[in-house]
């Protein structure tokens, strides 16, 4: 579907809440701005709940569930204050809210119900465009050879595998390259990357070797955690391959 058709079909929500994630807020603000511009260009108004912080995943994955719960309760409260769809430009943070909050509050009826109602409104960015709005042809144009890195929490956690690829293929001028062993983890894994740097680094280098031999000019993903890792690795290797969030590429192509 194209934007005009989406407008006519009524599938296009008038307004969304943006859960920008802590990583985008603090390290990659340009990604957040791209998400906003893409959504606005499609005619969707974006609201940013300013009291949002972090989904709590760092504590949750490290086993500190009591601390993760405190943060999760805050986020649920913040996201509860408005209604309508919530767009999350990260597979990992989206999986946390959509699947793991329910695990966190499995013995707490009141918060479990709230977690479920927030989770039902949450959509990862590419899945929001394709599954909720029904868009793939958004009329973008970028001339580049692009490798797509399917992040684990997006593809295995949320089952979002084709949506980003469809969006990329629909960008005029893009030559899509499937990476060798594309489904293999990049080794980020949050705190895993600093607590087990050797293993994480070795996983990263396998991924980067695949990226380099693919002859891609850019590496696109839907998770800035993976891209923090992969961009850091590419920079250490002195590579000129550029990393981008999918939203950045679409934003660039829609200008």
């Amino acid at each position, binding site marked *: 579907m194209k934007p005009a058709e989406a407008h006519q079909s009524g599938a296009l929500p008038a307004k969304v809440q943006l859960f920008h994630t802590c990583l985008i807020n603090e390290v*990659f603000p*340009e990604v957040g701005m791209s998400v906003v511009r893409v959504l606005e260009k499609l005619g969707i108004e974006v609201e940013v709940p300013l009291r949002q912080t972090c989904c709590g995943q760092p504590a949750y994955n*490290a086993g500190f569930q009591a601390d993760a719960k*405190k943060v999760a309760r805050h986020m649920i409260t913040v996201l509860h204050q408005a209604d309508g769809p919530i767009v999350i430009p990260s597979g990992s943070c989206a999986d946390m809210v959509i699947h793991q909050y329910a695990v966190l509050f499995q013995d707490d009826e009141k918060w479990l119900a709230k977690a479920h109602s927030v989770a039902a409104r949450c959509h990862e960015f590419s899945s929001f465009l394709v599954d909720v709005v029904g868009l793939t042809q958004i009329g973008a144009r970028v001339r580049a050879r692009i490798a797509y890195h399917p992040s684990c929490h997006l593809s*295995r956690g949320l089952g979002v595998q084709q949506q980003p690829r469809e969006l990329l293929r629909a960008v005029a001028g893009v030559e899509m390259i499937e990476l060798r062993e594309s489904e293999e983890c990049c080794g980020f894994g949050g705190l895993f990357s600093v607590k087990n740097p050797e293993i994480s680094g070795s996983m990263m280098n396998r991924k980067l070797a695949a990226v380099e031999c693919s002859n891609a000019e850019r590496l696109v993903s839907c998770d800035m955690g993976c891209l923090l890792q992969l961009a850091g690795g590419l920079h250490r290797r002195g590579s000129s391959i550029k990393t981008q969030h999918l939203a950045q590429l679409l934003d660039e192509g829609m200008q």
Partner: protein
Amino acid sequence: MSSPFQQRVLAAMGDQGLRSALDRATAQLGDRRKNAFSSLDHSDLIRDISRYAKMDLLRDLSGNLQRFEHALQDNGAQVHWAEDGPRANSIIVDIARQGRVKLAVKSKSMVTEETHLNEALEHAGMEVVDTDLGEYIVQLARSRPSHIIAPIIHMSRADVGRVMEQRIGVPFSDDPQTLARYARERLRTYFLRADMGITGANFGVVETGTICLVTNEGNGGMVTTLPRIHVVLMGIEKLVPTLAHLDLFLKILARSATGQKLSVYTTLVSGPRARDHESGPEEVHVILLDNGRSNILAGETAEILGCIRCGACLNACPVYKNIGGHAYGDTYSGPIGAIVTPGLKGLHDWKDLPGASSLCGACREVCPVRLDIPKMLLSLRKTSIEQGLSTFDMRMAMTAFGIVARSPNLYRFFAALVRWVLRRSTQQAWVKTAPGLAAGWTKVRDLKVPAAKNFQQQWRARKRGK
């Protein structure tokens, strides 16, 4: 100070031979698995049924074990119960002594690795020989298996040739055919001389008291039929309800393990030789081993007892591919080992294992019985925190995170502080060496310096400008 696990990881990662052997073997096994499943109709349904059967059995494991025991006894087998490894070993040593056993041959038994049975038998003055080709070489090399299915995945052909040259005095070769011939010639003499055969069990069928073994080399058949005494040592979790279920499990086990539609030999043992039979053992003993499994059953990772030891998760695991099996430090390695070992031996000494995962979920995807391995890893991490097994630094950091990240103002303040520190530390866009927790980060990659203004600042500025 690095932990024993970290030291083993570093040793493994420095071993280029190991790394390339792992790369080759895991990729090959992974591809074969994928192809094999594509030939199986209704594979999702078969996986669901198998998972359900295992989980259902575990709900009344003691009842099912009693039914299994009775069925075994009806078949003429003698059943023994062992609460731990030393008890299992002493039962087997006693059986061997009573049977005046001089030589025992073994096949298909990870669980005897778990109890260190070889040492116990040797200590009692008996000779014991592993007859699965990989295990035979492991035994010659005085090493330990590093993969559930491919025990010498860490060795090259030349490594094997050197071990055989040194230990059994054959001319060096790195030709697999020649090496297999060397092994076959020797193993045959052992099969013919052995008084006792020792095996594990891939499955124990509750309905019929049948022990099922799958092998590709035919040694399982030799070990279970030639010696006078056959001893089965099996974990109490290895049950399947009926022969009809066994059929389904065999379909997914071989495909997951080696990418075969069926293993070359499937051996069914239903007790000792009947009076009118020409071959088979005079005595069959089945030892049901707990060794920590009841603790697992009562705990948060009970699901792991559904594991059929196919090894598919090892081949899929990006961590295993990088560090191999020995780095996990015990009998079971890979994602399964990271759950089973702390379960059998306690989290205290093994808390590093559940932590050494990026939670990528590749294991869950390939598991034939759909074990939710990442969920169990997370659960073990949680328990290890509750048991106070984390470092003081981590506890402080996470307590602070729990306080700061639920207060937008505190959060903004600390995030700005971190950004300021990082931006001050360098003129460049990237940090090459960072202090504190971030030192682990810059060990292997650079750290992007955050933007001067964060997203919310940019967003608010844009709104004001509109």
